């Protein structure tokens, strides 16, 4: 039996199973004080050819104020389109759209069945213990519809022994307060965890508004001067509460049971545009969300086979209100939009291995969505009141079979066949093929390649939204190919270097786009053919600079041309052959960690190339978004007392006070500051220096 011997100092390279540190340990200690360890492992047969980026728990637990949108921005090749601080933030892989990114939480899909996308600003990173990105083809093994890829989010047992508690308080600019509490208890069989995050902010950051000028008038109302005003982000306040309860029971004889319940209570104002001239006190624009997500799970493990079953439920109520004061001091509704989504989920997975060379898996997942959307209250012609909206339900089935074969330790091949049913419509078979091979054991140089077909069905809003829903829409169709190399090298106690380079190429037909109509509303159409291709690079370096000094660098770079290849709509159409709007062609991120004893300096940098706002890629004065860099810096000091671990952390975000936009007319905050104080009591533990 040949085994791959991989020497790791801090973290395992991407594509291999990571050793996650015990969650009850102080997280900051985990980042910097992990000693060099020698791990001997087999390349997991379940990961044959899979392009997976695993986000380390140190990254996820970096800062209680971070959402998954922040984490993905700085630690992945995904493009995050943000409409502002604590506002809608969507994520897209490889030049596709946010609805082409499938998101699961503990196995259950959490993409909105109405919109198809996920708002990552509503997912606190502190609630996620295990996050991995499945790029392109690799998502087919997990779920369908991920024409760009999938983001897999999960929680895990805390592995607590007895009772433990962690509390972190954060204070920040613009009246921002963040609180995080986690209580855990565990023994050989039971693991209990309760987590709570509460964030609030008036979020009224100042910015120089270059999109408008304030006038100075004389007595005759002649303009005698004008200037770009310094304004505050109006209508941007938010209050977000998240509660997460987990209960796990492990029989110790191969059966594990789990319960995860996550409640979200969010009240957010919706910031106004830079080009808005309304009196702030005369208008209110807000959104409320109440969401419950719950999953129960059972895993039955045996030496050669295992089965797992999950059941879940999602309940979401969204309310959008746009009101104005008509002059009598009472806010009067202009728009009262309400929606309610209930999703029932069930999934059964099984896998069976024959020796070390063969692995067979089967999976069947079902999601039943019940959606009620109420968008506008009107008075009918007969004088009665009526509501514009829709009430629809849809069942979604997704099943897959796979066979993975590793004839030698250096080569593996895997085939997946998936089939999906949305409502009454089946997809054609969705095949995916993966291969990988070790080119050289020295440096663990590995080559991977995969290809797959994929489909994405229209969302319920695409089909039924009133007005504009188009029940005749076709599903989007895609083919994706990718290939890449990865390596890992290092020397015990000195350094570790790993990296990967991946080329990808995908074609999506019948791309759905919402367009205005002459009747004053938008309506979706199967409009575009898109060819997205490019390269993703990733590298991680960890170096022991000197005694007590450690340096870690993680970097990503993406080149993602995403080209409209459809037929021109008319002879005047200049969009064919051009980059899709709002998709950056280049993006990069770099994170550096420098640790010295109990001090940690963290530097995060990211860059997006300019983004076009027009499909013709014209760059007019009003129609382009320049490239921008973003720099965040934080410094943390940890204190270890006999009775508790304490930590104090200061962070500076947007270090160089950049004026930047992610979306037109949506200002982002300039330099701002955060301070965090954390305490982890040592219940009955001895002081460990």
């Amino acid at each position, binding site marked *: 039996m040949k085994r791959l011997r991989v020497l790791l100092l801090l973290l395992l390279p991407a594509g291999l199973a990571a050793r996650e540190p015990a969650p009850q340990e102080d997280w900051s200690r985990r980042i910097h004080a992990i000693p060099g360890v020698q791990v001997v492992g087999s390349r997991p047969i379940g990961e044959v050819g899979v392009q997976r980026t695993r986000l380390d728990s140190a990254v996820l637990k970096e800062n209680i104020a971070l959402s998954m949108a922040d984490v993905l921005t700085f630690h992945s090749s995904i493009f995050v389109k943000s409409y502002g601080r604590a506002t809608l933030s969507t994520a897209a892989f490889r030049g596709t759209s946010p609805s082409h990114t499938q998101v699961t939480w503990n196995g259950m899909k959490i993409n909105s069945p109405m919109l198809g996308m996920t708002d990552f600003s509503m997912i606190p990173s502190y609630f996620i213990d295990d996050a991995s990105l499945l790029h392109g083809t690799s998502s087919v093994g997990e779920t369908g519809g991920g024409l760009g890829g999938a983001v897999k989010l999960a929680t895990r047992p805390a592995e607590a022994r007895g009772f433990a508690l962690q509390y972190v308080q954060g204070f920040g600019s613009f009246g921002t307060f963040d609180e995080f509490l986690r209580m855990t208890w565990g023994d050989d069989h039971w693991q209990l965890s309760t987590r709570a995050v509460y964030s609030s902010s008036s979020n009224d950051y100042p910015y120089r508004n*270059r999109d*408008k*000028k304030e*006038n100075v*008038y004389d007595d005759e109302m002649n*303009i005698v001067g*004008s200037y*770009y005003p310094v304004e505050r982000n109006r209508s941007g306040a938010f209050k977000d509460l998240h509660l997460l309860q987990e209960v796990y029971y492990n029989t110790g004889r191969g059966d594990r049971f789990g319960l995860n319940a996550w409640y979200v209570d969010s009240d957010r104002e919706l910031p106004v*545009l*830079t*080009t*808005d*001239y*309304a009196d702030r006190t005369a208008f209110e624009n807000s959104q409320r969300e109440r969401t419950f997500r719950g999953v129960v799970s059972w895993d039955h493990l045996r030496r050669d086979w295992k089965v797992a079953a999950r059941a879940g439920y999602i309940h979401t109520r969204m309310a959008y209100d*746009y009101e104005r004061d*008509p002059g009598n001091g009472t806010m009067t*509704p*202009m*728009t009262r939009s309400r929606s309610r989504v209930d999703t029932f989920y069930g999934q059964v997975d099984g896998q069976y291995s024959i020796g070390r060379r063969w692995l067979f898996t089967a999976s069947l997942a079902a999601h039943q969505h019940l959606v009620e959307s109420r968008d506008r*209250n*009107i*008075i*009918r*012609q007969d004088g009665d009141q*009526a509501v*514009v909206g829709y009430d629809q339900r849809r069942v979604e089935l997704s099943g897959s079979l796979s066979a993975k074969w590793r004839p030698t330790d250096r080569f593996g091949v895997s085939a997946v066949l998936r089939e999906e049913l949305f409502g009454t419509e089946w997809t054609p078979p969705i095949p995916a093929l993966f291969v990988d091979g070790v080119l050289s054991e020295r440096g663990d140089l590995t080559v991977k390649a995969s290809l797959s077909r994929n489909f994405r069905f229209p969302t319920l809003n695409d089909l039924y939204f*009133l007005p504009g829903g188009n029940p005749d829409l076709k599903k989007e169709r895609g083919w994706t190919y990718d290939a890449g190399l990865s390596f890992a090298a290092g020397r015990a106690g000195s350094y570790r270097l790993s990296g990967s380079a991946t080329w990808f190429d995908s074609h999506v037909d019948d791309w759905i786009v919402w*367009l*205005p*109509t*002459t*009747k004053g509303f938008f309506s979706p159409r199967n*409009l575009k053919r898109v060819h997205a291709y490019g390269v993703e690079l990733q590298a991680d370096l960890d170096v022991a*600079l*000197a005694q007590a000094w450690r340096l870690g660098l993680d970097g990503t770079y993406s080149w993602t041309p995403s080209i409209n290849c459809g037929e021109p*709509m*008319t002879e005047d*159409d*200049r*969009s064919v052959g051009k980059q899709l709007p709002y998709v950056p062609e280049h993006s990069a991120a*770099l994170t*550096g960690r*420098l640790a010295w004893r109990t001090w940690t300096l963290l530097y995060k*940098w990211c860059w997006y190339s300019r983004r076009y*706002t*027009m*499909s*013709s890629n*014209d760059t*007019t*004065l*009003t*129609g382009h978004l320049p490239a*921008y*860099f973003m720099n965040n810096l934080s410094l943390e000091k940890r204190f270890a007392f006999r009775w508790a671990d304490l930590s104090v952390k200061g962070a500076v975000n947007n*270090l160089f006070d*950049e004026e*930047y936009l992610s979306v*037109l*007319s949506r200002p982002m905050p300039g330099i701002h500051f955060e301070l965090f104080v954390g305490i982890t009591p040592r219940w009955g533990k001895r002081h460990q220096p």
Partner: protein
Amino acid sequence: MKTARRILFATLAALLLGGCMKWDYGSTETFEAPARGLFVLNEGNFQYGNATLSFYDPETRRVENELFRRANGFRLGDVAQSMTVRGDVGWIVVNNSHVIFAIDLATFREVGRITNLTSPRYIHFLSDDKAYVTQLWDNRIFVVDPRRYRIMGYIECPGMTMESGSTEQMVQDGRYLYVNCWSYQNRILKIDTETDRVVDELTVGIQPVSLVMDCNRKLWTLTDGGYEGSPYGYEAPSLCRIDPETFAVERRFEFRLGSSPSAMRLNGAGDRLYWIDDDIWCMETAADRLPGQPFVRGDGTLYYGLTVDPERGDVYVADAIDYQQQGVVRRYASSGELLDRFYAGVTPGAFCWK
């Protein structure tokens, strides 16, 4: 010491990577506009604040885009809806920016603005110091003082709430002003401009989208019929001729159910109607049936706006293409011959003659 140097080097490298990025906001330009020409209002994309103003000189066939931004150094706003000329001043209604800008027609420089409007659609001048502004999402028509750029009062509109409120285009005939009520509405309102009150209303069909008055002082309105599944109703669109004296529908021409007529305009003589319904259509006001053949056939185009040169009779049609790039304006002679075409801004939707 060696370690410290390494760290210093790494820090400097990081600062270099961080480098400062600053926006190029450009500067203002000076313009001398020709005596006559066509303003094109480009709506832009809703919620993106990228509306723009273009100006086309029919004599030289020269077009200037992004005029407002270039002349004033800031953006026009979100969803440019309409423009009205009064004397030497152009009044640009920017719907989702809650503002109306007044610009000098020679220099395109701003001379004032009316702010804090609900969702303005059109402005109509009764005199130099009084104008009406229609609204969406509001059951009131705003009465404004254009000299002082301020809101003076409101006209309450019956049969609608803030949520279902919609008043659109205005046509004045002597003392009375007529307004079509469009979104989830079916009426034409008659307003006494001396008392600023609604004095009468006429039901014409679901969602009257355009309103004009011809050379014979007859009102014409075009209804779009709503949409399938609408709780307000769905019917065949229609073209109605209304006698303002009796305030009654004199003649009704019905379109095919499912068609989407919009943007009806008159020629300069006021005796020929033009509108968009996938193709471009025209009809004599004296005709007794809808035309069987279009004036200009669409060919994959998404026509969004239309105007007729009141002097030459040329027809200008805006094609939004995919609504995400600079749209094209096509200029046709009254014979239907294509004379010129030019790129304007994103979603060209409204026109105004200087």
